[in-house]
């Protein structure tokens, strides 16, 4: 088996605050192979962003990080700043969530792209760096790039700004692009354009991508494999087909149930998951999803389930590419649909779910 490009093992991140220690990430493992797209899904507060910030070494100094992150076999977690600076923007690039605040308002767009180029190519001249900036702008689809390269971020719309950020990420042909909720702050129509640009970036650079989002629709279109996170823990991982069609953890099932689907013939009502994620301070024992889980049994509150492959008996050697889920009763979920587990909640809840034709 080929050496994975990026390998995260046992990542734990906690932050001390006035109210207590926030355990943002509790034991994340995943691997990323060259060229593949890993989608990371979870609600706000599930720890998905913190995980990737930890990989890049961009967490605040107060964060306590343990575990291991290796890139091409080299340990980069807690590595020397010089090593990290070589990797950031060059081997692993990042795209952040809010395009309105990601770009420095006082420098032109071209200057900021050129800065990224010059940071990793010390010998390049300013003119060459700037013309590369124009090339990159053309690539990401900014119209009139030779003029717009001198303009400032506030003269661009949100979607265009995000494309500039993607251009910056692409600038040095990285091996990995981490996109942290790249479309969350944008309108739906613009989302599609930005996702296209991301795909283009991937094709151009041949990079692998970690795509973090809470939007399952985005994942469905882009990802090869999916990691589902909840309350700082990975609770299911598998290929995109396995996750979407054969989920084996109630949370994943619930997520799918809250998503309107165009690929299902028989229209079902949406079945949201009631309640809210737990506080990350003083996390109770047992499965963090238990309070909201319709299948919850006493054992769920006592023992936190481990992330285990679903189709192999427990105790087999770990297979990073296997479909794994963290649920004591994962086997019972075979063939279940979301409405089997979660109830519809709406004004006309008295009507049997699925039988009333809503719209044909």
């Amino acid at each position, binding site marked *: 088996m080929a050496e994975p490009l990026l390998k995260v093992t046992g990542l734990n991140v906690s932050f001390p605050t006035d109210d207590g220690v926030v355990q943002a990430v509790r034991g994340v493992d995943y691997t990323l192979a060259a060229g593949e797209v890993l989608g990371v899904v979870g609600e706000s507060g599930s720890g998905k962003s913190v995980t990737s910030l930890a990989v890049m070494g961009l967490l605040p100094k107060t964060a306590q990080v343990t575990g291991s992150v290796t890139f091409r076999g080299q340990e980069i977690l807690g590595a020397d700043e010089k090593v990290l600076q070589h990797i950031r923007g*060059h081997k692993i690039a990042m795209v952040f969530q809010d395009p309105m605040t990601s770009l420095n308002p006082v420098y032109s767009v071209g200057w900021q792209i050129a800065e990224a180029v010059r940071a990793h190519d010390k010998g390049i001249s300013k003119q060459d760096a700037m013309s590369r900036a124009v090339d990159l702008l053309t690539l990401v689809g900014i119209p009139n790039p030779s003029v717009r390269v001198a303009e400032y971020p506030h003269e661009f719309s949100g979607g265009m700004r995000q494309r500039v*950020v993607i251009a910056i990420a692409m600038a040095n042909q990285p091996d990995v692009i981490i996109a942290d909720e790249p479309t969350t702050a944008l309108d739906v129509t613009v989302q599609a354009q930005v996702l296209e640009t991301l795909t283009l970036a991937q094709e151009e650079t041949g990079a692998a991508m970690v795509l973090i989002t809470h939007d399952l629709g985005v994942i469905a279109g882009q990802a090869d494999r999916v990691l589902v996170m909840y309350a700082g823990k990975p609770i299911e991982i598998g290929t995109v087909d396995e996750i979407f069609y054969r989920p084996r953890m109630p949370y994943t099932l619930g997520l799918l149930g809250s998503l309107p689907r165009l690929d299902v013939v028989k229209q079902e009502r949406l079945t949201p998951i009631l309640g809210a994620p737990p506080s990350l301070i003083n996390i109770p024992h047992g499965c963090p999803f238990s309070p909201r889980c319709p299948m919850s049994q006493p054992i769920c509150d006592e023992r936190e389930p481990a992330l285990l492959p679903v189709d192999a008996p427990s105790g087999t050697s770990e297979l990073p590419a296997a479909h794994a889920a963290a649920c004591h009763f994962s086997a019972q979920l075979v063939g279940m649909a979301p409405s089997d587990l979660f109830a519809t909640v709406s004004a006309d809840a008295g009507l049997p779910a699925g039988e009333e034709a809503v719209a044909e």
Partner: protein
Amino acid sequence: MLAYIVRRLLIAIPVIFVSTILVFGMVSLSGDPLSDFKFTIKQRNSPAIAAQVIAAEEHRLRLDQPLPERYVNWISGVVLHGDFGPARHLNGSIASNLGERMLSTLQMLVLAMVLALFLAVFVGVISAVKQYSAMDYAFTFAGFLFLSMPVFWLAVLLKEFLAIRVNNALGRTVLFTIGEETPGLTGGFWTQFTDQLGHLILPTMVLAMTSYAAWSRFQRSSMLDVLNSDYVRLARAKGLSNRRVMVRHGLRTALIPLTTVVAIDFAGLLSGVIITETVFSREGMGRLLLQGIAGKDVYVVMAWLLVASVLVIVFNLIADILYALLDPRIRLD
């Protein structure tokens, strides 16, 4: 950019105009400037002569004119002839007095501002970068201390205690405490220059210390905001060196709000100037004002307030332009 400047200039003119009216009204309506004068004249002379003398002085000061006429005469004199009106206790015209004193004041003011700015940025940045460290706490406490210290107390403290100690320790007078220069000093340019500098050190320090405190607190919080911003995070994610991120992305953006703060504080600095000149007996604009108020020299006071407000407005204009230069976002306004 040019349009922006022109627009700001055009707004400034009516503001100056209204402030002249305000100044004139305030001074003219705050009592009879000749009350003491009348008292002494009446004491020393017969009623008939007293009445004549008083009437003559009233006429000279245009107090026999109705207010609107007085205002027009005053303002047209200033704008058209540079004539600020008749003074009571001055040698020479108000304009020439103002001119001489402005040099003394501006020397101190500009030097103090530059010093305070450097200190504030330095302290603010270090405090932000090493947040919650011992240095941060020390700087914070020092900042609070100087914020709470009255300018006049610090001035007297430095004058009476520091100057003597330092001069004794060095064996010669390095820190002067009175005036702008040693009277009767002979010697070339260099001697004059160092002498003036020696007279400037203490008052400048006093002015600078009290300003730097407020600005450094502000710079610290501005820097903290910037350091936690998304674009600084992106800059780091690009793989830029720490130094570059801190200076090019951090400091550069954090300096922008400081221009506004400094501009707002300028009027306060002028107040500080008044105090400092009093303590260090410098013949600057501040002393002129106090002497004018004490002597009920209305035209002197009006001239001072007018010049002060023009200075403030001009300074604010410069700050606005600087702000537009630093922050491209507002240029399109």
